């Protein structure tokens, strides 16, 4: 058989008869790829025995854009906008992750001010991603009120992001060796007032859900996974910490100056959906703590490294001086050329460990770029978490894993 007519991925195998024979026929149905509770184009092939889930098979690829291949055909600089479209709920932290990887390849360290701004960006991204998760996750389980509260808070953050980067979603804010622009006037004040108001809003969300009996019944003991299993599957981020494993890239391999901040790593104990909820909630508090510290320690100084081979010259000089004009053309068309070699760099993104593997052969484009996206790996755990549970609990499992298809499929 030629490859064009290769068979589609197999459906779940024949249903074993036996103890379930009494229950009659099993049903194989598709949940997704367009289903409101799969948060994107995720297709789950379910084998059901009545209401009980007997097997789950995630099928991915509906949002595949070939990003890793695209990267091989453009300069390192041109790929930054593509990273916005990975986890599109936290584009700022993707931007940071990618440029940190390229900078590691080139042996660049950005000035302190840029490092602190990047930390602020990452934490804003984390809070806004977790808020969206909380709102939609609660909505999936029938708690519609929470959605409005989280979106109100998230809106404030998006306004902050908009005044920093000029857009709300596709931020493209970082540059290799620095940032797109310095903080606009009054921006830190905006963040400061958010940091002051946010814990109260969080208390309210806490009050709405944490001790709510309906919420507890829908999440406690649902989608359980043990620590060893979670590590075996490669889970990271809140999904791993929910099982009680204290692993956070910000602590274990600090980047961008994270070692200077004081914050806790919240962990769960049972590894169920409720724990993952509590962990994310607690993480938002920690993030707002980090934001507070970052605003205090934000130093003055340049935001870009001083390297005319990497950083575009200032506009007024491009317009008036020949050298800078030539530099501008050289950087844009020839890019910068990291030395041959390979590196892997990961950051703690809202969904878990987001890593970029880069291999350079000394040219202006990467020879290979591989993205380790946390959501893709989280999806593997669906089977472990959902089999044996009810169909309605599967919704809670998917919501608690917080996958984003933009980064699953790349």
């Amino acid at each position, binding site marked *: 058989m030629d490859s064009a007519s290769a068979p589609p991925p197999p459906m779940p195998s024949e249903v074993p008869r036996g103890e379930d024979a009494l229950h009659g026929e099993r049903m194989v149905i598709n949940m997704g790829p367009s289903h409101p509770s799969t948060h994107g184009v995720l297709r789950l092939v379910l084998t059901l025995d009545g209401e009980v889930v007997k097997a789950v098979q995630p099928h991915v690829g509906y949002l595949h854009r070939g990003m890793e291949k695209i990267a091989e055909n453009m300069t390192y600089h041109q790929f930054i906008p593509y990273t916005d479209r990975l986890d599109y709920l936290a584009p700022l932290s993707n931007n940071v992750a990618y440029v940190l990887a390229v900078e590691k390849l080139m042996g660049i360290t950005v000035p302190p001010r840029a490092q602190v701004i990047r930390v602020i960006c990452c934490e804003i991204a984390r809070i806004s991603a977790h808020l969206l998760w909380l709102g939609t996750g609660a909505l999936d389980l029938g708690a519609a009120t929470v959605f409005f509260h989280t979106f109100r808070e998230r809106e404030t953050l998006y306004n902050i992001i908009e005044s920093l980067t000029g857009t709300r979603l596709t931020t493209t804010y970082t540059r290799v060796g620095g940032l797109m622009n310095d903080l606009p006037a009054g921006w830190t004040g905006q963040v400061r007032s958010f940091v002051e108001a946010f814990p109260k809003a969080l208390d309210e969300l806490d009050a709405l859900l944490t001790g709510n009996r309906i919420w507890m019944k829908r999440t406690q003991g649902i989608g359980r996974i043990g620590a060893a299993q979670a590590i075996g599957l490669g889970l990271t981020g809140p999904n791993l910490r929910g099982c009680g494993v204290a692993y956070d890239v910000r602590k274990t391999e600090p980047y961008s100056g994270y070692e200077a901040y004081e914050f806790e790593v919240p962990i769960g104990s049972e590894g169920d959906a409720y724990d993952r909820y509590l962990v994310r909630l*607690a993480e938002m508090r920690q993030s707002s703590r980090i934001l507070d510290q970052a605003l205090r320690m934000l130093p003055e100084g340049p935001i870009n490294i001083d390297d005319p081979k990497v950083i575009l010259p200032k506009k007024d000089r491009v317009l008036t001086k020949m050298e800078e004009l030539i530099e501008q053309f050289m950087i844009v068309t020839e890019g910068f050329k990291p030395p041959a070699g390979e590196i892997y760099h990961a950051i703690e993104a809202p969904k878990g460990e987001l890593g970029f593997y880069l291999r350079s052969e000394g040219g202006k484009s990467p020879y290979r770029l591989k993205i380790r996206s946390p959501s893709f790996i989280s999806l593997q755990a669906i089977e472990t978490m959902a089999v044996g549970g009810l169909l309605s609990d599967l919704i809670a499992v998917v919501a608690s894993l917080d996958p984003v298809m933009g980064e699953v499929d790349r």
Partner: protein
Amino acid sequence: MPLKGTPVKRAAHAGLLAATYLPSILKGMWITLRHIFRRKVTMQYPEETWKLPDNYRGLPALVRDDQARVKCVACFLCEYVCPPKAIHIEAQEIPTGVEKGPKVFDINMLRCIMCGYCEEVCPEQAIFLTKEYTTVGVNREEMIYHKDRLLEMGGIRPDPIKKWAHLTAEAGSGTHR
């Protein structure tokens, strides 16, 4: 040193009264009620519209200088850098001292992702991202903005550095528009 986590506190079941679900429901309603009296955060779009920051990245457009001359010199840098390849330029010779300008300058707004790279790399400050974010077309051709439309959107933009100011006199006959 292994990393130490801070365990989160799980809420325990709160007895008989909680089992009726009433406390949870009332608490939720109380929070919702309190919000009725707070400042409204919604906006009555389209009667009210959003105030955009000055660095907003909307549709890109070409600008003219204070003498209404096209600033673009068709250097192709923006076409080169544009990540989704939305820009198409054809150059022509022009009779002013600038010598070169765009004959064709198309931006395919279906492809453009408003990344701002064109503005960032342009060595003539000839292309800018505007505050325009609503765009509509009934077919694909309409969404390819040609030079005239882009220039109309951009308008005149007097920048502090007037690179070609000395050409005013000698350009004489052929002010390129």
